[in-house]
């Protein structure tokens, strides 16, 4: 409740504040930002100096301005500033300060250089005035308005966005959709050039960065975007946020000529270990792109091949999950080759994967059928009876003694994980709902060969139907694949969070 009240209060304040960008305001003006108002003070350029009208300042800050005996007296709550025409000096409560240029008359108005605000007005005013001349911003009161600078560095298969906030302000990065990140600063507003980043080329992973109310930057991304990884680092008065933008692997590369494949399962990519956090129940995920090589799987009515779709989605999922979740993701194949069903689960089992996800695309004899399906394994009564707990086998151990081991046939390994497989399937259904088309009852059970040997929670996902022309086009698109991967990522996070840390799924 407290949080909600605070949020409402903050929202109301921030709505009143608005965004602060000098260059967002058409024409020369100074943006005055306070807790409860924003207004523009028009600027004029006199002798190459940006100047502001004393009458405008008087109105904005409740000042009294009097002109007598060749002097201009500015009063505020008994404190005074005395200006002299043609003089660059001013008396502020009896102390002399210098200005870049003297006051000048423009018709019936007096204009003073904008430095008057910081050098003359601020010392007598009872609220802090922070003049940001380069950004044409005047902050009134104790608002948090960090200066933001954005830099982008393009790398071969990724890009690095460096965002500095001075003084330090934390920021939260969220992925709004498949092509946009939001960087929300813990601040009342942000002081940032516009645009924050010069427009990038159409091939760049980061296309543009723009400002959104009230203290948020929106990063527009190339459809090749697959995921991101952000780290923050305090540096003196600055908080630096480094965001590595990851591109999906190139899925259009031609099939490599057949090469002898190693007999051993592919080595897992090396990732730095995670320190200082409880050991997650999900440390390794095996993603199985269905079919491959001469086994093309389903062929869409417009020629799309199931084997290509499954590999493209698997690569995106690997990039996103590894970058953002810090877990190891194994692909049972990372190129266009056929892998035996047993070898697919062997890769997962031998690498002690904690979750197995097999990706497929469906086909139906009826072309109107659409939607994604999540399938968990099922076994016949005889199979379940044969894996019922028994006395196991007693084997000698190193150093003497005996140990009982439980033996489960290789092709029935999944029987011990069915509950959690169904649990993950249901979580996945929740995450996919409203994001990608689903069949009426998306979670199903079937005796699927590729799941039965998986010695961990395992599901097979049919992402849609290639026998439907609309689905074929949809599934092959970046938008669908990124949305699907986001839902898969969210499901993995929720499934992980549903397990006690350190537990074996």
């Amino acid at each position, binding site marked *: 409740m407290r949080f909600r009240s605070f949020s409402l209060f903050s929202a109301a304040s921030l709505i009143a504040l608005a965004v602060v960008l000098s260059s967002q305001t058409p024409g020369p003006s100074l943006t005055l930002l306070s807790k409860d108002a924003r207004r523009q003070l028009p600027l004029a350029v006199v002798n190459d100096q940006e100047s502001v009208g004393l009458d405008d300042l008087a109105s904005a800050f409740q000042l009294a301005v009097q002109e007598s005996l060749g002097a201009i007296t500015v009063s505020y709550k008994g404190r005074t500033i005395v200006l002299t025409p043609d003089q660059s000096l001013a008396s502020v409560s009896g102390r002399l300060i210098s200005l870049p240029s003297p006051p000048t008359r423009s018709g019936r108005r007096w204009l003073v250089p904008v430095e008057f605000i910081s050098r003359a007005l601020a010392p007598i005013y009872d609220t802090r005035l922070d003049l940001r001349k380069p950004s044409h911003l005047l902050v009134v009161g104790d608002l948090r308005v960090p200066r933001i600078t954005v830099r982008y560095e393009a790398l071969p298969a990724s890009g690095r966005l460096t965002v500095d906030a001075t003084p330090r302000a934390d920021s939260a990065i969220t992925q709004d959709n498949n092509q946009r990140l939001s960087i929300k600063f813990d601040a009342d507003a942000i002081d940032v050039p516009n645009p924050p980043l010069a427009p990038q080329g159409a091939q760049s992973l980061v296309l543009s960065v723009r400002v959104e109310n009230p203290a948020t930057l929106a990063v527009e991304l190339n459809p090749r975007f697959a995921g991101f990884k952000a780290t923050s680092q305090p540096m003196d008065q600055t908080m630096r946020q480094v965001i590595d933008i990851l591109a999906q692997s190139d899925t259009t590369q031609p099939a490599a000529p057949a090469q002898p494949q190693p007999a051993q399962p592919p080595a897992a990519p090396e990732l730095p270990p995670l320190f200082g956090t409880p050991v997650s129940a999900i440390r390794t995920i095996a993603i199985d792109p*269905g*079919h491959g090589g001469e*086994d*093309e*799987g*389903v*062929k869409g009515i417009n020629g799309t091949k*199931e084997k290509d779709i499954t590999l493209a989605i698997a690569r995106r999922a690997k990039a996103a999950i590894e970058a953002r979740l810090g877990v190891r993701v194994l692909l049972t194949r990372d190129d266009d080759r056929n892998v035996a*069903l047993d070898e697919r689960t062997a890769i997962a089992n031998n690498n002690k994967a904690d979750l197995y996800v097999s990706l*497929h*695309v*469906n*086909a*139906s*004899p*009826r*072309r*109107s*059928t659409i939607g994604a*399906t999540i*399938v968990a394994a099922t076994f*016949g*009564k*005889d*199979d379940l009876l044969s894996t019922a707990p028994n006395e196991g086998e007693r084997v000698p151990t190193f150093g003497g003694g005996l140990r009982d081991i439980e033996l489960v046939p290789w*092709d029935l390994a999944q029987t011990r994980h069915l509950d959690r497989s169904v649990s993950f399937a249901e979580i996945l259904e929740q995450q996919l709902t409203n994001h990608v088309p689903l*069949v*009426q009852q998306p979670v199903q*059970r*079937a*005796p*699927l*060969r*590729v799941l*039965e040997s998986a010695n961990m929670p395992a599901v*097979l996902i*049919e992402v849609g*139907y*290639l*026998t439907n022309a609309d689905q074929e086009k949809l599934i092959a698109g970046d938008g669908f694949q990124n949305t699907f991967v986001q839902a898969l990522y969210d499901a993995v996070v929720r499934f992980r969070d549903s397990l006690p840390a350190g537990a074996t799924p």
Partner: protein
Amino acid sequence: MTQGRILAAGAIVGVAIVLSWLIFSALPRRYGAAPTKAVSAAPAAAAPAPPGRKIKARLFYVAEDGMHLTGVEREVAYGEGTVAQAREIVSSQIAPVPEPLVNAVPAGTGLRSLFVTDRGDAYVDLTREVVSSHTGGTDAELLTVYTIVDALTANLPAVRAVQILVEGKEVDTLAGHVDLRRPIEKNLEWIQ
């Protein structure tokens, strides 16, 4: 006393007969402890059906949603005994059907042979077209498999499970999804 002995002897003989029946006939039948996969009949051709006689059987075709099967009552040639009848049912099931019915079994698929074990496992040996002409996809494959499985198990109480063979050999799957290494039990969840 003599009458008592006669009664006792009679009772012992009776118990022995019942025990013998239990041990050698009823229990093996109840628990399916057939020593071998005894083929209860040779391929169905050995039991020709009387010409012209028909039965009504529930055959299965793809439902409107494309993800389930729907049962259709159709006339099937009569077969003498479980195996002959099973063969007639499968032959009718895999035969081409007029629209709007859609068959989940690929066109061109033929039945090579069929036999049923004493345990009630039917082995259905199909021609290679069931693989080579298959579109692939989990749903399409599930519908193909359960069309055969449910056509037999729903119409013949003596059949409790079905294993599909292709060209006389056991296969892992038809198109990479459904495990065919073991007999598959009746599952009416795929029927709408």
